[in-house]
């Protein structure tokens, strides 16, 4: 097709989903997107307490005592994204865009910058003045010298997976037990810590989606959780 029709983005908020389950879901959706059976998808969700080790992470980055992890019910999971160790948990909005960057967005650097633009705009709408940091050590979105959102992306034949994690109302204590992103002196923060407002994740997801479709030039289609996780084959 020479003049492409508008590109749809199916999105929704899945609620709380375990890290491994979200990985399986992403793979099945990614395969469908890559095969052209499904339009682009933006999953929003939150994870139960989990420390995830990126490809460049070492177990030494988890400072917590195994017993502490167990009593708190914190899982440790390895994953195939870039980056080091990070924490996910309740109150943190996780966004997993599974979008085909073909044919006009085949640029990793641009993709990451676009995600940062989306996050900065979302934060601005919630009254937070933030700045993107682009060096690979500090990649994310920062509020002065504290980090409010992390980015970790995987790309397979220009179809993205993994994505970003925005601390909305996260219990920041859990970050103390790791070396986030391999930077030992990184201080994490959250929207609640900065503004004192406790937003629901679904509300932030809705705002974030609006900015996402603006930046990525997609048409949003809100899809129920049940239907997102069913992963029906959709010819596009």
């Amino acid at each position, binding site marked *: 097709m020479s003049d492409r029709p508008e590109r749809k983005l199916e999105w929704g908020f899945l609620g709380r989903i375990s890290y491994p389950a979200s990985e399986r879901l992403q793979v099945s959706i990614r395969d469908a997107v890559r095969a052209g059976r499904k339009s682009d998808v933006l999953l929003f969700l939150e994870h139960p307490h989990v420390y995830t080790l990126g490809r460049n992470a070492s177990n030494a980055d988890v400072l917590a005592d195994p017993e502490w992890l167990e009593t708190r019910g914190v899982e440790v999971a390895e994953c195939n994204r870039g980056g080091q160790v990070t924490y996910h948990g309740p109150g943190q909005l996780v966004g997993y865009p599974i979008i085909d960057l073909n044919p006009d967005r085949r640029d*990793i650097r641009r993709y990451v910058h676009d995600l940062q633009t989306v996050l900065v705009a979302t934060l601005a709408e919630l009254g937070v003045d933030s700045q993107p940091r682009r060096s690979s050590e500090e990649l994310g979105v920062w509020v002065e010298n504290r980090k409010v959102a992390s980015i970790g992306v995987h790309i397979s034949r220009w179809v993205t997976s993994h994505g970003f994690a925005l601390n909305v109302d996260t219990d920041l204590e859990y970050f103390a037990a790791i070396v986030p992103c391999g930077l030992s002196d990184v201080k994490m923060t959250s929207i609640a810590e900065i503004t004192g407002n406790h937003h629901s994740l679904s509300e932030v997801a809705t705002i974030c989606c609006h900015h996402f479709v603006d930046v990525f030039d997609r048409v949003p289609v809100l899809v129920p959780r049940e239907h997102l996780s069913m992963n029906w084959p959709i010819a596009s």
Partner: protein
Amino acid sequence: MSTEVIMPQMGESIAEGTITKWLIAVGETVERDQPLFEISTDKVDAEIPSPASGVLLEVKYPEGATVQIEAVVAVIGEAGEVPAASEASADLAEEVRDPKMTSAAEAVAAAETIDEVADQTDTVVEPELVDRVRKMSSPLVRRMAEEKEIDLSRVPGTGIHGRVTKNDLLRYLESRVDTSTAPGVRTAEVMVKAATAQPGQFMVPAFAEGDNVEIEPMSNIRKLTAAHMVYSKQTSAHVTTVFHMDLSRVAKVRDRAKDGFLRTHGTKLSFMPFIFKAVANALIASPKLNASIDGTSVVFKKDINLGMAVALDWGLLVPVIRHADGLNLVGLAKTANDLADRARRKKLVPEEIQGGTFTITNPGVFGSLFGTPIINQPQVAILGIGTIEKRPVVESDADGNDTIAIKYMSYFAITFDHRLVDGADADHFMIHIKQTLLEESWSELDPFL
């Protein structure tokens, strides 16, 4: 005949990438488009697919190496003895990569030479030779063929000089295997494919060449709906049963209360809140209809979240009234009207269209007597409300005298999943609704009467 694998450019301003992992070891076979290695640029990991099928002959950079874009990082070719022509090609290719050779013209010339050599070789290969070479496939392929008792000369080869590669053999095997191996565990994908007719399967063309038609692509919501409907039909054992409901009492109460209700609450009082209330009460009594099936388990939903189908210009949406059992008529009316209104204006947020445990649809709004709705997965039942109108009904009094009365009547059709719900369960549920509509006094509306 070997193929060079180059470090791809992952973005306009990106000059290099770090190889983080080789997914295929030297000597292993790889299929075209299968992930071959992973790189990391700007903290983003990317899987790079193989540009060709064959054996990974050489890896030029170890994991952890940072490599300029366009650099050759690996070579893929055929296993075992390399034909002379290929060797020549490889040598020439080596030269192309030589850093001393900087002229683009020279590189092109060399590349053309490779093609020429390859072409010449092709033309001198005799038919018997082709046959022999094909049989002389890699040890792996020969072993596989032996195991499966296959004569390799019968297998179409796509490798060098028509050699049979591992993939050729797998394809050949696949084509011989009956594909209908596991009935009952068909995926949604298979369902929809079946429904949309694949080549070789039974299909009726939508139109013939020259027909007077106009073709328009489906909207996304149309495609989703189509896939959901087929998926649901293939998943659940649909049964529909129809009850004749007497809403005379509801109609009377509503008629007297609606003006006061609108003045006080600023929203209209339709028949629907009464029906929602009756349904929520009946679901408390019939938990099987407020459930889902998970494999061989039954998942009883503790919350009663009523989905209400809303027809829109651009498709169908099912916003959800959460905890409907906890709402009174005012709460149900306000919630339902607000959801329907915002559905039309595309202003719903995620949790308002998900988590439904039971769905109500209202085909009667357009005059239909009753419909046989399709279940909204993963639920197990859906209630269709037919048009509500005055009808003559025969009534018998205690003495057995029959009279014809004029009543507000409606056909309610319940479609249930017979995997979980039996006819008696559905009837029990419907009788509960019928009783509520007949007997409930709706005393909360007394202030408006």
